[in-house]
């Protein structure tokens, strides 16, 4: 018996003027699955995410989430339905302490609805969530102003902001970029924990080794087109993928 897909993308197209950023993108995502999206720079990975999350409107095609058509809906409405994302370029509120950064997602109508309109002390919830993603409570890192935090913590903050929304689908846009091996190693268990909790995850990554360790399935994009779809091993064996990454003779 097959379960209904959580996310169903059909025939997605996006043109920026004369440039075709995404061409006929089709894929399905089962609940609880971890999908990796890879591809060379400029292959349309982030655009695909922007199209799904409503930050950019598609030229044509359809995006269904939990069977509901969300194509072209405003980004805030898509978040309320249950898709949260992180940004490749972190977007914290630099003048605020890290834990105050969490107040805005905790103020979200989605969170209000899920917890019955009450969230008690948002500051306390924020500190708990930050501890989950590795803001050591004893070191009081969460009280530091975001502009004073190193990149590793800003990425964790970005992840915590997405988790705070209690989403059904989390899209992580190059969460590992700019991080050291040790930092990546410390964030991986957090993602694995999200999977155990039953969250469906899409990860866009350039760090293939780490991605392949946890991904159920991988999609490869090149020039806005899907050129491979399958397990990590299948995808890396594909001639089209080798050609896209390494070029042909």
């Amino acid at each position: 018996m097959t379960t209904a897909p959580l996310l169903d993308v059909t025939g997605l197209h996006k043109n920026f003027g004369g440039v075709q950023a995404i061409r006929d993108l089709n894929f399905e995502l089962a609940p609880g699955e971890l999908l990796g999206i890879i591809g060379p720079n400029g292959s349309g990975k982030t655009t695909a995410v922007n199209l799904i999350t409503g930050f950019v409107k598609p030229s044509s095609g359809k995006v269904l989430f939990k069977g509901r058509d969300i194509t072209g809906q405003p980004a805030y409405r898509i978040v309320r339905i249950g898709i949260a994302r992180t940004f490749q370029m972190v977007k914290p509120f630099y003048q605020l302490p890290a834990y105050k950064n969490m107040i805005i997602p905790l103020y979200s109508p989605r969170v209000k609805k899920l917890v019955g309109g009450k969230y008690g002390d948002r500051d306390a919830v924020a500190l708990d969530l930050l501890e989950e993603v590795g803001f050591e409570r004893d070191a009081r890192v969460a009280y530091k102003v975001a502009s004073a935090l190193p990149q590793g913590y800003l990425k964790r903050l970005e992840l915590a902001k997405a988790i705070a929304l209690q989403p059904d689908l989390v899209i992580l846009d190059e969460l590992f970029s700019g991080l050291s091996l040790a930092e990546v190693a410390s964030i991986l268990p957090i993602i694995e924990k999200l999977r155990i909790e039953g969250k469906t995850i899409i990860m866009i990554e350039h760090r293939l080794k780490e991605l392949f360790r946890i991904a159920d399935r991988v999609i490869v994009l090149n020039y806005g087109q899907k050129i491979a779809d399958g397990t990590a091993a299948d995808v890396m064996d594909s001639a089209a993928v080798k050609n896209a990454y390494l070029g042909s003779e």
Partner: protein
Amino acid sequence: MPKRKERIDRGINVRSGDVFALCSWREMLYLAGPRFIPVFICLLLPLLLGIYWQKVLLSVAVFALLAISWDILAQTGMISLGQALFFGMGAYITGILNHYWGMSPVVTIPIAAVCGGLICTVLLLPVLRLRGIYFSMVTLILPLMLVRLIEATRIFGGTEGLTGMTPIPSKWLELYVIIGAMLAALFGFRRMLSSDYGLVLKGIRDNDRSVLNAGINIYWYKTQALFIASGIGAFAGAFLTHVYMFVGMPVFALDYSILPIAAAVVGGPGSLAGATLGAFILVPLSELLRGTGGLRIVFYGVFLVIFIVALPEGLFHFFQRKYHQFERWVEVDQ
């Protein structure tokens, strides 16, 4: 016994942060002083000043309200160059209601504040998506357009304006209503902006995509901020119309747009208190410079430039920083 210096505010901040556990009058005074003393002075000033300076005080309060209104918008990321739109809209609505239908100021002023706020919000709704200078340009143009509209169509008294408004019954009522409104707006909206709701508004200024990504409709929040700000401006305009017993094209003048910005910059934007403080400096200064005739605006300009260069953070933030840095001598345990 050796001694060392200790910052006064540290302990007080800890004891008043999460759990309010202040135990001495001195600590209470440290926190309450900067709030109560200005309030006390504001309430006392009308009794101490002569008739001329009482009128100046009234003008200060009006400009302080406009500066607060500007600062609320600025904190939501909307830099307005057209507070005169809000001010003039309130002034004309109250003028029309009083002139044509003879309604009392008790009714016209609240109606003008709410309806003025609503009309200005609706007028600016289409440009809420614009950011930075594009939003500013539209706010600058709208009051200028309305002036020409009134001039060309001769509606609402045309260039002559409408006269014979019902005055406010007593000068004391006049002064204390506007000062009360200013203090209420200052403390009320300061509280609002320091709440979680205020954090969302400031988040829109700092990074609107990130707020959008939290499932929050930023345009709805911007609309609310715009309604609050324009309502405050419209109230100020409506009130002054009944004081001057006149409404005409000058209510859309550039002064009402520029002076609030100057006040917020001199006092320190982002705190509302700074905007109010700025109005308390600039409006009386402008009056004092009246004697210099045509050179008034030159002196005024020089003063502004000096201020901006010497204290870019604004007076309020400067004083606040110094206040938090007060130290006392304490004995060191051996």
